[in-house]
Structures are given as C-alpha cells and as structure tokens.
C-alpha cells in the first residue's frame, strides 16, 4: 500500500513537473485576439489586420487640458519635440505650422509624376490653354492667393490639383498655432507608435514615455494645473491587460481563500484540506498545459476562468472525502463513482461543445475547463485515494446537519409555487425577448464607459479617421497593389463626381505605381515642343510666355527624373499617409482606401450597394468595419446558440443513455431547465442585457448542475438520501458557487457574465434538484 501510494505520488509529481515546464514556456496574452475570429472571411481578415497591425491601431491621441491656450500650446510643442526625437514613435503631429510646407514642397518638386491630371492631352495646345486659363481664374478666388507665388512655375496648376486630394477640410481646429479641440479648451496631438497595435508591451512602453515626458515638462514649467488625456487602441489594450492581470490574480486569491476556508471548516484537518486541493491544482495546471499545447498562446481571460474551475474541480475530492468515510474506498468506488463519472461526463460534454467555436476565446475556455475537470476527476478517482490512504476513514466528518430533512420537506412543499413562478418567468422572458440580448460586440469590451467617452471626444476633436468604411485591394507586391489601388481609385472618382461619397484617401496619390509614373512621364513633351505649344496656348491670355522659363525647365527635368520611391517621402506627412494605408502581408501587399461619407446627409452613412456596384468586376473589397463587427458578433452569437443547444442535447443523450428511463431523465432535467429560466429572467430583471457569454453560462449551469440532479436521482433510485451525500453536495455546491460567483466581481464582461449566470444557477440547480427529488427519498 505504501509503495503504491509512493508510485502514485511520483507519477503525479512527474506529470505536474512536466506541466510546469510547459507552462514556463507559455506565452500569455491579453490582447484583442481573444475576440477575433480564428477562421476569418476575407472581410474579417482586413478587420483582424487592422486591429493587430493596422496604422489606426498604432495611433495614440493626446489631449492637453488646463492652463490657457498659449500655455497648452507651449506644452504641446515641447512634448512633440521630445517625443518626435524618440525611436519609439514614427511620427508625432500637433499641427505646428511649417510641417505642411514640407509636404507642399515635396508635392511641388514631383508634381509632374504625381498629378493625376498629367496626360498627353493636357500638354497639347488646347490642353495647355485650358490649364493656363483655369490657373489664372483661380487667382480671382480667395484660394488663389495661396497659389499666386507658384503661377509661373506651375501654370498648369498641378499643385492645386494635388492639394485638393490631400484630405481637404478635415484638419483639426487650432489655437496658438497648434491643434486644439473644437471648443479650443484642449491642445491636441497625434502620435503614431513604432510598435504595432498587437504589441501590447511596445504600446505600454510608448504610453509610459508619453506620460513621463509630459510629467517632466510639467515639472520644468511648474504648471501643475495642466493635465494629459490619452486614448487610442494601444491605450485600451494596455489598460485591458492591466485590468485582466490584476483581476485574474485578485479573483484567484479570493476564490482560493474562500474555498480553503470552506474545506477547512468541513474537514478540520490541514492534511485533508491540502489533499482536497490536489485535484484542483492538477486540473488548473492541466488546463493551462492543454491550451498552451493546442493554441500556443494562453489568454489572460482563460486563466481568470481558473477561479471558477477551482470551485468546480474541488467537488470531486469533496465527494470522495465526505462520502467514502463511512463506506470505505471499495464501496465508494462501486456506489458513488459511477454517478460522479457521469457528472464529469456531462461537464465534459458541456465544455467540449465550446471547442468547436470559431471564437478563439470561447474555444480556449472550453479546452481549459475540459482538461481541468477531467484531470481533477482522474486525480480524485485514481491518485487521491492512494495518497490519502486509510486516514480518510478516521478523519472524515460525518456530522450531517439534523435539520436537513426539515429543509427538504419545506422545499418540496414549494413545488407548485415554484412551477408557477417559472411559468411567470417564462412569460416575462417571452415579453422582453426583443431586448434580452445585447446587439453588438462592444458588450464584451473591457473599456470602461469613461474611457470610451474620452476616446470619442478626442477622436471627434482630431477628426481622426475612424476608418469605418474601407475599400481594400491587394497585390502580390507593392507595385501590383498600388496599380490595383489606382484602378479602384478611378472607380471611386466616379462616385465622388456623383456626390455619393465626399472623397477617399489613396496612398497611390503620393506613391504612384511605376506604370502610372511612366505614363505621366511619357506625356511630357520635349523643351522645344512645349515652348511652341505654350506660346500658342497663351496667345489670348494675360500671361506672358517669357515668364514661364522655370515651367519649361521643370517639365523637361521631370522627363528625366527617376521614379518617386517610398524613400523620397521620408520625413514628411505624406510618408505617414502612405505607410498607414499600406500593409505588408505574408503573401503580398494590401492597400486601404478609407472612404469619406458625403456631408449633409445627416447620418454619415455610405450606400454600400453603390460602392459595391462601382467596384464590381475588380477584386477590390468594400468593407464597413462596423457592419463587419456586428456581423462577427452575430455569427459568434449564432454559433454560441448552436453550440449550447448541441451541448445540452449531448448531455441529454448521455443521460438518457445512462438512466434509461424517460421519467428519471425528466426528473434530472426539470430542475436544470427551471434554474436556466430563473437565471435568465433574474439577469434581465437586474438590468443586464445578455450577451453570448451569458449563453455559455447557461450551458454551464446545465453541465455543472446535472451533477447534483444525478445524485438526487441515484438517491431516489436507492430509496435513501443519506446525510453524507447531502453534506457532500452542499459543500460541493458551496464551493462551485464561490468559484463561479467570484467571477461576478470581475469588471471583464466575459468573466462577469459567466459569474453572474453560473454562480446563482448552480445554487438554484441544487435547491431545485432537492425540491423535485421524489418524496420520501430523504431519511
């Protein structure tokens, strides 16, 4: 016996050490990929890329409040100066004057290769005449004052044509020479990090730098009334990770301490309590190992779910210690183990259903729990008895509470009122079914309302692109992708002309494909031809040809100029614009063309069908990010419904197969169904709108609650509900409720939903199971 115990212990220890070694190698993450589809469609792929490494995901918005406008501007300039010099930031903008002059000079220098207006027709006598006339007309406009200095150099007006395309009219407001909020009370900056959006560590470093530099400036200027506001995807990611980290630790500690206290109260033995936790620790470790091996990365939320697993996994050892005390190991194995095994199987079926989810977070929770529960049960059934040895018999408490029969009788007298109440709850659910569910993915976001409000305010002040509407084109290389972007641009130009959209951004404007540049270069005439045509075109215009020597020289130079490359744009805002809209992927490049909704339509909506029609025949993809998010959530929800039903069905089939009696099956399922009904109605009454994790919680009520129902069923079959069984069920139920209930304290919606549904659900399942156990069973 002793050597057997030693062997068991060694096997267990070896497995634990192997597991610990794997966990030590595991990468833990708390980023958005928890929510991102594992098998994305082409549209969802764009969504995933945008969130993980899109330029928008690398933008941080900064607001400076307090003091007066010139003090804020001073801090803004100083902050920009410091941050822009750091390698952690690709660009930091605050609207300081001068930064746009560099862009203008760049456009001017390369105008003949960049301007979409350059084509052979433009350099005929007629084309030149038209272009010259337009440029002269432009001088009568207030805007003409800006272009007057360039008239003799650029008489065809390529610069105005290019500047029009630079996202016109969307500049933030400005005070004391730097960007400001619309009310002028905040100075605004925009920083693009070098770290990608998915690189939470990099984002955290960037945020820390911003804060410390701001503090340094504040200290040196002595302006303690100036405050910094920060927002952006990186900020949310870092905050979410901190929240999850902190909560996982806190929840695990709370749940562990509470459960340890319960066990100690029940066993009054340190040794038994420690042994009781053995399956739990094993299960939690096995869960992390399984997820790590299957997915490579373990989400923080998955680990947080461990708090619930503690409560569930500890049940098996509780059953063993409490129930085997009087009977001894052999009798316990024969009488109780099959019931526990069936309970484990129903739990496994419930969690297992989640494995098929395309929502990676859900699949991980499923695998984690499944491996954890299975391991805990196996350790309880096969290792724990050897380790605990004969001590159990002497130490196990058999002090059942005498009042328990009275409680049972009282519960059973409430059968009809309970059924009536369930009917009312069902009617209530039916009445509110339309607003029972939260309609979108934001239900699962960890961002607090205050943070979201700051984000919305800063975004509106900066006119920052929320990039809701995108056209995406792809190519095997950069050149092909840019050429595709130019083709899509032509289709979109038509929509701009019709007023369907106000405009769009296109990196090919500043970095045209080599083919487009070659075509423009070929359109430029030689010096003599151009001189002759210019003279002819100017015949009836008030501009004298002999003033246009720089024009002729510039055109001739452009004929021999090398193509513009990405490197030519270095250091300008144009480089930022190009980089933020181009994305290198494993098998090529993709280019994003954000669309600007037409103004004045009230709702800034874009008619998706018109865009799709205009792009028909090309491989350009139109994406409405919000619609994609909504669709993604709807698909998760739909899938979760299917999986939950499949899980419940599997459990029913399993029970039917084992119980082989419709009446017994009904008796087991009735309390579970009632518990689910009460929980749904209760959550809605408490003001919660259900989301898909609540749904998963309902599945878990069935999976976990069936354990109690099965014990009642076994007891009914054997005609007695002995005090040991009742006590063990009470303790097991308490620990389960503590484990899941702890999650209700979480501010992470995924965990909170599971906690608020399974915590009360487990208790209800036990009470209702007791209520509907056949009369006279208890003795």
């Amino acid at each position, binding site marked *: 016996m002793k050597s057997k115990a030693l062997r068991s212990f060694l096997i267990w220890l070896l497995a634990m050490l192997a597991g610990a070694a794997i966990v030590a190698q595991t990468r833990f993450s708390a980023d958005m990929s928890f929510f991102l589809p594992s098998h994305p469609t082409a549209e969802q792929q764009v969504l995933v890329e945008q969130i993980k490494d899109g330029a928008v995901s690398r933008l941080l918005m900064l607001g400076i409040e307090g003091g007066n406008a010139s003090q804020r501007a001073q801090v803004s300039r100083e902050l920009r100066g410091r941050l822009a010099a750091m390698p952690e930031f690709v660009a930091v903008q605050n609207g300081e004057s001068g930064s746009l002059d560099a862009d203008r000079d760049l456009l001017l220098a390369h105008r003949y290769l960049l301007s979409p207006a350059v084509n052979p027709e433009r350099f005929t006598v007629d084309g030149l005449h038209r272009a010259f006339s337009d440029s002269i*007309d432009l*001088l*009568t*406009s*207030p805007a003409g004052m800006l272009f007057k200095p360039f008239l003799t150099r650029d008489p065809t007006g390529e610069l105005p044509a290019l500047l029009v395309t630079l996202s016109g*009219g969307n500049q933030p*407001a400005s005070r004391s*020479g730097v960007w400001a909020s619309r009310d002028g009370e905040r100075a605004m900056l925009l920083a693009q990090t070098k770290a990608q959006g998915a690189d939470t560590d990099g984002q955290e470093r960037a945020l820390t730098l911003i804060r410390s530099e701001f503090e340094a400036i504040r200290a040196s200027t002595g302006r303690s009334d100036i405050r910094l506001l920060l927002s952006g995807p990186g900020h949310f990611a870092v905050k979410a990770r901190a929240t999850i980290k902190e909560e996982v630790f806190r929840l695990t500690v709370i749940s562990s301490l509470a459960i340890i206290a319960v066990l100690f109260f029940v066993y009054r033995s340190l040794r038994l309590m420690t042994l009781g936790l053995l399956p739990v620790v094993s299960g939690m470790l096995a869960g992390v190992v399984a997820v790590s091996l299957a997915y490579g990365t373990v989400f923080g939320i998955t680990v947080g779910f461990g708090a619930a697993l503690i409560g569930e996994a500890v049940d098996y050892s509780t059953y063993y210690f409490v129930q085997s005390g009087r009977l001894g190991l052999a009798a316990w194995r024969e009488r109780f183990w099959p019931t526990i095994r069936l309970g484990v199987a129903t739990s496994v079926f419930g969690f297992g259903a989640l494995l098929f989810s395309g929502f990676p977070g859900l699949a991980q929770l499923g695998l984690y729990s499944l491996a954890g529960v299975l391991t805990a049960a196996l350790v309880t059934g096969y290792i724990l008895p050897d380790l605990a040895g004969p001590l159990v018999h002497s130490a196990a408490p058999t002090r059942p509470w005498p009042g328990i029969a009275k409680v049972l009788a009282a519960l059973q007298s409430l059968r009809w009122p309970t059924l009536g109440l369930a009917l009312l709850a069902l009617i209530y659910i039916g009445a509110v079914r339309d607003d029972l569910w939260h309609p979108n993915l934001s239900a699962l976001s960890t961002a607090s309302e205050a943070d979201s409000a700051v984000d919305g305010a800063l975004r509106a002040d900066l006119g920052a692109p929320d990039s809701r509407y995108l056209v995406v084109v792809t190519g095997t290389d950069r050149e092909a992708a840019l050429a595709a972007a130019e083709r899509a641009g032509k289709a979109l130009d038509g929509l701009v002309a019709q007023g369907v959209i106000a405009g769009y951004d296109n990196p090919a404007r500043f970095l045209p494909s080599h083919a487009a540049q070659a075509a423009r270069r070929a359109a430029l005439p030689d010096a003599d031809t151009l001189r002759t045509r210019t003279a002819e075109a100017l015949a009836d215009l008030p*501009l*004298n040809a002999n003033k246009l020597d720089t024009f002729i020289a510039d055109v001739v130079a452009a004929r021999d100029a090398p193509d513009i490359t990405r490197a030519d744009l270095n250091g300008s805002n144009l480089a930022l614009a190009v980089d933020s809209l181009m994305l290198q992927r494993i098998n090529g490049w993709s280019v994003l063309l954000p669309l600007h909704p037409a103004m004045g339509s009230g709702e800034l909506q874009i008619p998706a069908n018109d865009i799709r029609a205009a792009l028909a025949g090309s491989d350009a993809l139109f994406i409405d990010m919000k619609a994609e998010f909504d669709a993604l959530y709807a698909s998760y929800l739909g899938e979760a419904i299917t999986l939950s039903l499949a899980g419940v069905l599997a459990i029913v089939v399993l029970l039917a197969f084992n119980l082989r009696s419709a009446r017994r099956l009904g008796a087991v399922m009735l309390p579970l169904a009632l518990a689910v009904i009460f929980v749904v109605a209760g959550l809605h009454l408490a003001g919660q709108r259900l989301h898909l994790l609540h749904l998963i919680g309902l599945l878990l009520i069935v999976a976990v609650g069936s354990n109690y129902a099965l014990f009642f069923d076994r007891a009914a079959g054997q005609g007695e509900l002995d005090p040991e069984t009742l006590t063990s069920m009470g303790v097991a139920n308490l620990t389960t409720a503590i484990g899941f209930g702890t999650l209700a304290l979480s501010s992470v919606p995924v965990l909170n939903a599971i906690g608020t549904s399974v915590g009360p659900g487990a208790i209800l399942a036990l009470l209702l199971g007791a209520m509907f156990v056949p009369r006279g069973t208890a003795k």
Partner: protein
Amino acid sequence: MIKRLMLSLCLACAALPAFATFDITQLMSDLARHKGGKARFVETRYLAVLDKPLISSGEMTYVAPDRLEKQTLKPKVESMVLDKDQLTLARDKQTFSINLASQPEALAFVDSIRGTLSGNRAALEKNYALHLSGASDKWVLTLLPRDEKIANFVQRIVVNGNRGQMRQIEYLQADGDRTVLSIEPINP
C-alpha cells in the same frame, strides 16, 4: 511770434471738438447701424505676373455681425461663406472648409472686412492702426497692420464709403499686387 503761434494752435485745438463731428467713433457707430444687405461687387486684381488686370464679379450678402457670403459669378462660379470663424469655399464641386482660428494671418485679414462691416473698432484695432479722413458721407479709412506677419500678407487696406455703407476696399499686398473691390448695394 512763436509764442503767438503756439497760442493760436492751442486755441484751435480747444475749439476742434466743437465742429469736427466726424471721427472713428462716429464712423463705427454709423457702420454698426448697418445691419446687412445684398450688394453687387466687381473685384479687380492688378497682378505683376499678368499683363492685364483680372476682373471678377458677383453678389455678396452681409448679415450682421458675422456672416458674409460672396457669390462669384464671373469668370467662374464660386461661393465663399464666412460664418463666424468658419470659412467655406465651394468651387468645381469641391468644398473646402477651414476654421480661421487656426490661421491667425488669414483671420486678421478677414477681420479687416468683418470689423469694418460691423463697426467693431476693438477688433480692427487689435491688428491695425486706423486712420480716418474725409467726412461722414465720403470717408476713407486706412488700416495699417501692426504685426509684421500680417504685413507679409497685406501691406495696407483702404476702405471708402458713405455713412454706414462700405463702397470700395483696396488691398495692397506686400509684393505690390493690388486688389480693388467695388461694392454697389442692391436696394430691396
């Protein structure tokens, strides 16, 4: 001799307020009484780079105190709306909108028209030194920028008018180019 001259000068000074009823304060209150209206304009630009002046024309509407619409009909249709600090320019189906608070020089320039139209002396004196000549029914107000930055934009602004009505504005730019805007009120 000098003493007598000084004395008569002092006497003249003392007597001045009694008959010089027209000053900037008076002009400003005349202008402020003018609550707006519609006018035809002809704008002539004399640019060194061009052989001939450029002429454009159209209609403008002023609604006191801070809305100004300028609808150019020739040579090309264009509309400019200034509403508070928001300048919106529409041309060739393109619309540009800019908040002038972000462009101090442009704001100073716009304030020269707006300040004159609304008779807002404080706004005008913020950026310009004012010189008034003429009489109430034919006055000439000259605005000289105080700030060098604004002077790079516009060297001098000369406004002519009679009573509360502005009739002509001339802008002299730093490079010597000149714009003359003539205004002919349309009586409703």
